């Protein structure tokens, strides 16, 4: 089974996966030909435009016959082809956000993609600031996600806290029927 851990760069996806995964999180990369109006001309263009996207990967064996695979990826419109592959058959997504006001807006693009692909998701608000915590209701409002979408706080460095976020996702999926 596959779940996605998505969010902007530096939001804690790799840390989250390393907290949960039974293996050291692996990073691989995929080269993607950028989509543009000039796609058809690319074969004739010497400086073919490609970009590389990093993918984090981790796994957790739940039972002998049930393995959870976690994929961490930044959500950018130009990596849509990869998203199509990643979202196929995925249970859902955990969208990690950084609640600091100046960082929160970086999550909009990811949320757009998740909704575009029709993925069920929950918001995980990573604990960034030792000085203050951000009320989850405020984060929900700032992101303008629907009231049914769970918003949970989590500390991605902590295994149990990260696990709780994943369980929130599974509970959310169970409530969707």
């Amino acid at each position: 089974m596959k779940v996605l851990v998505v969010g902007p760069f530096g939001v804690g996806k790799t840390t989250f996966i390393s907290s949960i995964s039974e293996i050291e999180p692996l990073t691989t990369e995929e080269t993607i030909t950028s989509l543009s109006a000039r796609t058809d001309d690319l074969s004739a263009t010497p400086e073919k435009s490609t970009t590389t996207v990093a993918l984090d990967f981790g796994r957790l064996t739940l039972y002998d016959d049930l393995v959870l695979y976690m994929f961490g990826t930044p959500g950018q419109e130009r990596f849509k082809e990869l998203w199509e592959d990643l979202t196929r058959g995925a249970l859902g997504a955990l969208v990690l956000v950084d609640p600091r006001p100046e960082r929160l807006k970086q999550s909009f693009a990811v949320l757009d993609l998740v909704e575009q692909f029709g993925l069920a998701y929950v918001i995980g608000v990573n604990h960034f600031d030792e000085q203050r915590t951000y009320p989850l209701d405020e984060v929900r409002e700032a992101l303008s996600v629907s009231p049914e979408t769970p918003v949970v706080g989590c500390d991605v460095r902590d295994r149990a806290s990260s696990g709780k976020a994943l369980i929130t996702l599974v509970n959310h999926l169970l409530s969707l029927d």
Partner: protein
Amino acid sequence: MDPDSELELTNSLVPAFVLTGGASLPTENELSRDSLVAVTAKGLEARIILPEAALIRDLLSSGRHLPVYEVAARIQVPLGVGRALLTQLCDEELIVARPPIPKATQADRALLARIRAGLQEQLGA
């Protein structure tokens, strides 16, 4: 002298496409990025020359199925190269591919409940 040491041709100066032994990239349908692969009996016994292919064989020798993503990450090649290599090994019947990580449907409540129980057990959450 270990004959295999002569085959250590790979370093960061060798372009990625060399690793595929000249094979071109597989089409989308051959091996998807989340197909699961395992080594065959033939693969375990075969003399494999391409160093990356040998690494893949060693990686799979425990008998476990691994997704294409994980194989590529572990042998430290880009995903596209990993897919090309694995497709080639499949064609030679040194490995077998299983269909991608199975699709979850919303109706599959029993499975979700099982995942939840497993997470609670494994993570103490």
